């Protein structure tokens, strides 16, 4: 058996070298998770600045130019720095354990794909200190805002996006290779845990669309520096083309964010319902259907650019079609709980909140998909509320559930259940106070991405800001809970932390040894 990992007792040089040169899937998973949490706090800090400025009408704290940089950086850091790496971290930790593999298929590439990420975000964050400021054109960086009118730092932004794309593509290839080639004998595709299924489909989406994003920023780079006119009408280009290319990436991207979250919830709900997942194969097909449909609906983000009526109708109906496989999933989760022996530990609370709030966000998505109504909703706070319900109550809640669910397996310590539940209720209440009022603001006509607003929007904005501060506090509680568990948690050595849990990850000791499944396990 190979030697164990270096600890601080071996000296700090050995300890740092362990993390920098590690090819162990558990170490790399841990690195991804901590990195994404750091980015989550950074993006959260930007959000706090935004909400503090919007606490009252008028300009109090920051200047509008800086406000624009904050909204842009908040979006970029949360999407590319927090949510995506968090789920890659979960994939690294859990996929080999779930399919009975000793490690990821390509451990060295795994190391590289993590270690280029901190550089990407160092570059991106450093733009805030440059002359002219950081990116200020919104996280969707529409041309010509991001080309003709962009600050000089836009080239650093483009380079950072390139690095993130390379990291995501390498991580995805690794996951695809692992799942295709490293499964334990007897684990056929239709016996894989659903988290593995959703991730392998996500990985295919990433390989397909991250290069499109790289292509979009490369065309921006050429327009800015080399005199091409992809997006510049003066030279025969078209700015609307940018929106098509961006959303051809961007719509699959939202499913890249949410599919692994579906997977996590599909692991947790059966455990605490003490029943197998209802409709396993329909879950797999629904996931694949969502992934396929995500490629053919992108222009529903652009109903207002001017489209023939046939185009609007097509994109409207195709978008509504996605509600069908998504509805299948929600139905299956609820049916799994039906007549189950339910208990409500923290991971389950977050998962149930996920199902409720994600469904809510799905319904506002349906409202937005109606082309005629979208003319009113477009670029208002209604859209902001919609995508925070699906991304925060969707991806972040499910990520939090995953942390509580697997933390005992990772570190061999049990978190404090009371603290976990307190954190859940603070997060749940704070989240809804923060984002529910934004629906009302949007319907009343408040546009997004402005540093100031009319007096008629003052009350709900103050409520929303208070909720945002509560929700921000809940994340510090999560950090505290995790650190307290690692340092002082009650040790647990049980293989099965949760009595209702099924799967290979619950057949290894807790904490999971540094090397697992050196010999493939029996799987029937």
């Amino acid at each position, binding site marked *: 058996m190979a030697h164990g990992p270096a600890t601080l007792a071996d000296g700090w040089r050995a300890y740092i070298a362990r993390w920098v040169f590690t090819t162990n899937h558990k170490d790399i998973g841990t690195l991804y998770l901590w990195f994404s949490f750091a980015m989550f706090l950074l993006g959260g800090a930007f959000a706090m600045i935004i909400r503090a400025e919007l606490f009252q009408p008028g300009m109090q704290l920051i200047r509008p130019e800086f406000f624009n940089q904050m909204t842009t950086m908040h979006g970029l850091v949360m999407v590319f720095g927090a949510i995506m790496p968090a789920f890659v971290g979960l994939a690294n930790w859990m996929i080999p354990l779930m399919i009975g593999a000793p490690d990821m298929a390509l451990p060295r590439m795994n190391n590289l794909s993590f270690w280029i990420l901190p550089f990407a975000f160092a570059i991106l964050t450093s733009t805030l200190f440059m002359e002219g400021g950081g990116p200020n054109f919104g996280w969707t960086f529409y041309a010509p805002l991001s080309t003709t009118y962009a600050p000089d730092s836009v080239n650093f932004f483009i380079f950072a996006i390139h690095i993130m794309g390379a990291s995501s593509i390498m991580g995805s290839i690794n996951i695809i290779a692992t799942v295709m080639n490293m499964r334990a004998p007897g684990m056929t595709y239709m016996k894989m845990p659903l988290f593995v299924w959703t991730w392998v489909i996500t990985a295919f989406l990433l390989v397909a669309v991250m*290069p499109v994003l790289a292509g979009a920023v490369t065309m921006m780079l050429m327009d800015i520096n080399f005199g091409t006119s992809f997006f510049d009408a003066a030279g025969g280009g078209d700015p609307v083309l940018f929106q*098509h290319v961006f959303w*051809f990436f961007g719509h699959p991207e939202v499913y890249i964010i949410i599919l692994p979250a579906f997977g996590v919830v599909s692991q947790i709900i059966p455990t605490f319902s003490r029943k197998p997942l209802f409709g396993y194969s329909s879950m797999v097909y629904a996931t694949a259907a969502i992934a396929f449909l995500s490629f053919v609906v992108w222009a529903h983000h652009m109903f207002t650019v001017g489209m023939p009526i046939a185009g609007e109708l097509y994109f409207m109906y195709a978008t509504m079609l996605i509600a069908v496989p998504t509805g299948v999933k929600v139905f299956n989760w609820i049916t799994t709980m039906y007549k189950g022996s339910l208990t409500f530990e923290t991971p389950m609370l977050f998962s149930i909140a996920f199902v409720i709030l994600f469904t809510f966000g799905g319904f506002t998505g349906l409202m937005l998909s109606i082309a005629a109504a979208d003319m009113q909703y477009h670029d208002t706070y209604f859209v902001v509320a919609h995508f925070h319900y699906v991304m925060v109550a969707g991806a972040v809640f499910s990520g939090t559930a995953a942390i509580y669910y697997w933390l005992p397996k990772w570190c061999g310590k049990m978190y404090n259940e009371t603290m976990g539940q307190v954190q859940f209720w603070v997060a749940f209440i704070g989240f809804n106070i923060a984002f529910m009022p934004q629906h009302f603001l949007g319907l009343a006509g408040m546009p997004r991405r402005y540093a100031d607003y009319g007096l008629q929007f003052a009350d709900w904005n103050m409520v929303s800001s208070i909720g945002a501060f509560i929700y921000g506090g809940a994340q510090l509680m999560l950090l505290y809970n995790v650190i307290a568990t690692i340092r002082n948690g009650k040790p647990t050595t049980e293989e099965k932390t949760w009595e209702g849990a099924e799967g290979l990850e619950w057949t290894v000791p807790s904490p999971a040894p540094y090397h697992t499944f050196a010999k493939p396990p029996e799987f029937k």
Partner: protein
Amino acid sequence: MSTDASNRRVVVKSLFGAAGMFAFAIFVLPPMYDLFCEITGLGGKTGDEYTAVDVRVDTSREVRVRFVASNNASMPWVFKPTKDSVVVHPGEPTEITYFAHNITDEDMVSQAIPSLVPNNVADYFHKTECFCFENQPLAAGEQADLKLIFIIDPDLPEGVNSVTLSYTIFDITDRMANPIAQLQ
């Protein structure tokens, strides 16, 4: 097949897939978009130079053609159509002019980009001669009448009684290697 070999196959295939999607985004999507707009007339892009075929003037129909001009963000020229609108018969070649005046102290080059509404008539609006086919250099303080000859196709869909042609001028001085040479 060993795991290493099949891993290598997955890596090679995926990298090819990723490279293919990158090339698709840069080399296929933009031309596809242009082609799509050309076929559907979306975006109101009018066609290139048109060679008039048989002259068949449909005097039974009248179509009003309106002219609009606008300057892109930083373009300081005075730019406007000399007539706001004309009434023409389909099939009849009509000449109109746009007036342009470079009010700055510098030699400049502009490019006019057309757009037509309603956009489903772009295929029926033919230009036999247009200043927009090339760029428009004007020396400091110079002014010019820019010529445009168009023909409305007699096959113009029923029910279309008016068409609006819009030009936006862009400052492309920086793009030209030597704007002065353009003026010669």
